[in-house]
């Protein structure tokens, strides 16, 4: 089968357009044409590149120099394309491109589904596994550095600190790391646990407490964070989430990257809620283990929740005491039989810490 068309030939030495008659022989798989100075060229179809550019078709041949023929006859171009397809030398990229816009929209949906699944299932899983690999010394190092830097500007109450450490020593906290408590004089109603076992308690939160069982509840909660390496887990998850988002969406465009970042922040917030929940549950176990009244934890939460009306302390905004959390504790109290007895020593130490 033979097809003919006119084209414009560029010889690769100059930009002079030369009008030619181009003959395509499908059987011989060749393109044949004559130039003005009567030279005949025969191109093997296998070595000819066919590209659509700016609504025209370009046949490219050779690499140095590249010779070009521009044609506008789309029937002719499609015949060449069909032959290349039949001979199986159409790349799979072109096959994917030829599938059309509907398929590409489907690809888009598929890509977003993969990203979504990867983000919500694969990333947290990998992060969790990564924590096991990271040595505990790293937690300690991280905590120490943070502690040293932060305590420089804080007013440490040495007397209360000593009493609080004695208080904690009376308790069985199921801890694997050595714990060190510090009381900082500050109206902030907050307490936080560092990954190395340093637990910082602000006097603001101590002042809101009415009974020693509330303090046991708080300590139990914070120690659970340390025991479960929540800080490290949080860091691994945030970091891997961030890497995932910026790797997949960073190159796309700013709006997608921003959306990704915000999803990541929201997601990390829900992750931190999960940790708070875990710490509440273990805090409850620690209370029971130490034969303290678990109602203290519930009372503490209620008091902290009331506080919200006065101001919004950091403790509440970073892990808000929701009605959910209080209900959860109350449910634990109802469900689990517990016994408690008044501990005079703890009570005495608690009064020391408070005053």
């Amino acid at each position, binding site marked *: 089968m033979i097809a003919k068309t006119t084209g414009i030939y*560029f*010889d*690769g*030495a*100059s*930009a*002079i*357009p030369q009008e030619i008659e181009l003959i395509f022989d499908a059987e011989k798989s060749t393109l044949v044409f004559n130039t003005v100075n009567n030279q005949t060229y025969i191109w093997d179809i296998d070595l000819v590149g066919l*590209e*659509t*550019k*700016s*609504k*025209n078709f*370009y046949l*490219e041949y050779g*690499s*140095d*120099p*590249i*010779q*070009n023929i*521009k044609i506008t006859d789309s029937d002719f171009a499609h015949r060449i394309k069909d032959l290349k397809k039949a001979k199986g030398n159409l790349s799979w*990229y072109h096959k*994917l*491109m030829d599938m059309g*816009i509907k398929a*590409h929209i489907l*690809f*888009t949906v*598929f*890509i977003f589904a*993969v990203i979504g699944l990867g983000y919500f299932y694969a990333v947290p899983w990998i992060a969790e596994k990564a924590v096991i690999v990271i040595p505990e010394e790293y937690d300690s190092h991280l905590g120490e550095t943070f502690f040293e830097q932060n305590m420089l500007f804080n007013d440490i109450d040495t007397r209360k600190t000593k009493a609080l450490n004695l208080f904690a020593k009376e308790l069985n906290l199921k801890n694997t790391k050595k714990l060190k408590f510090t009381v900082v004089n500050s109206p902030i109603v907050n307490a936080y646990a560092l990954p190395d076992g340093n637990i910082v308690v602000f006097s603001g939160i101590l002042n809101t407490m009415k009974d020693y069982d509330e303090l046991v509840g708080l300590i139990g909660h914070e120690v659970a964070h340390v025991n479960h390496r929540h800080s490290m887990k949080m860091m691994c998850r945030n970091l891997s989430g961030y890497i995932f988002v910026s*790797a*997949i969406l960073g190159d*796309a*465009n700013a*709006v*997608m990257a921003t*959306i990704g970042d915000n999803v990541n922040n929201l997601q990390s917030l829900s992750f931190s809620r999960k940790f708070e929940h875990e710490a509440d549950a273990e805090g409850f176990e620690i209370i029971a283990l130490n034969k303290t009244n678990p109602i203290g934890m519930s009372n503490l939460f209620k008091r902290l929740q009331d506080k919200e009306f006065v101001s919004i302390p950091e403790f509440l905004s970073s892990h808000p005491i929701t009605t959910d959390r209080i209900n959860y504790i109350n449910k634990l109290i109802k469900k689990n039989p517990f016994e408690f007895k008044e501990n005079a020593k703890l009570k005495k130490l608690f009064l020391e810490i408070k005053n």
Partner: protein
Amino acid sequence: MEESLQTSTNYQLEFNGKGTEFFSIIIVNWLLTILTLGFYYPWAKARKLQFLYGETSLNGDSFSFHGTGKEMFKGFIKVLLIIAFLYSLFFLFVYLKSPILAIVILYLGILALLPFAIHGSYRYRMSRTSWRGIRFGYRGDRKEFSVSFFKWLFFTILSFGLYSSWMSINMRNYILGNIRFGDVEFNSDGDGGDYFMLNLKGYFLTIFTLGIYAFWWQKELFEYYINNLSMSKGDKEIALNSTVTGGGFLKLTIVNLLIIIGTLGIGYAWVVTRTMKYIFENIEMEGNIDLNLLLQTEENYKDATGEDVGDFLDMDFVM
């Protein structure tokens, strides 16, 4: 006498790319990049550039980008080795307990890569770009450029950044002035002082107008870049002229923003094609060089290392 009176020739620059076509390219690229865990990236980049160049035409004939994924992948591996070497030096000095020296070495190393990356990426990009089979080329000298680069950088640091206007214009003049389009030479005649004043004016007027002037500032910058660019061949030349307007940029930006926000970013392809169309519609060329007489003069250059370093450092390509 007759020669120089030759009537001027017509030149027509156009961008013909459609958003839907570019969307398909982006999506297939994305799919393959994800399925290959990122290894397809150089090929994806080649496809993207082939489309953008191919859809740009001068007097009805398309430009071509001949770079391949394979070339850029090789460059990518080399860059990886260079970066790995820099980081191993960094960790060596950290291990030897001199962290400050380690950081200095890392930063100096990356800084030293910059002129190489700029030089390399221009040589590669230009050599792989053609029109009617005639290659572009970059003839800058790497050593000369690197020396100037660090000299300008030194002045910029010494003047607390004031010299940066001169630095960017000098760099532009050097790079663009060394670009060849076959046997046609590019020239760039920007002046650091003018550029500085332009930015000073743009900055303050933008503040006074609560940001609205930013579009006109952008227009003036674009105009400054384009109007200072010209091409010459012997005594013949082509002057470039920008016809963009502040209002045009304003409309372009707002519509682009609406597309991006409305489609949650998926409409990116249309934003690119609209922008390219606007830019090429607003560059006029006037002069008397007969483009039919362009000759192939520039050599092939297939080393994409500089191009890939540029990618790593997130460098923007000027042209």
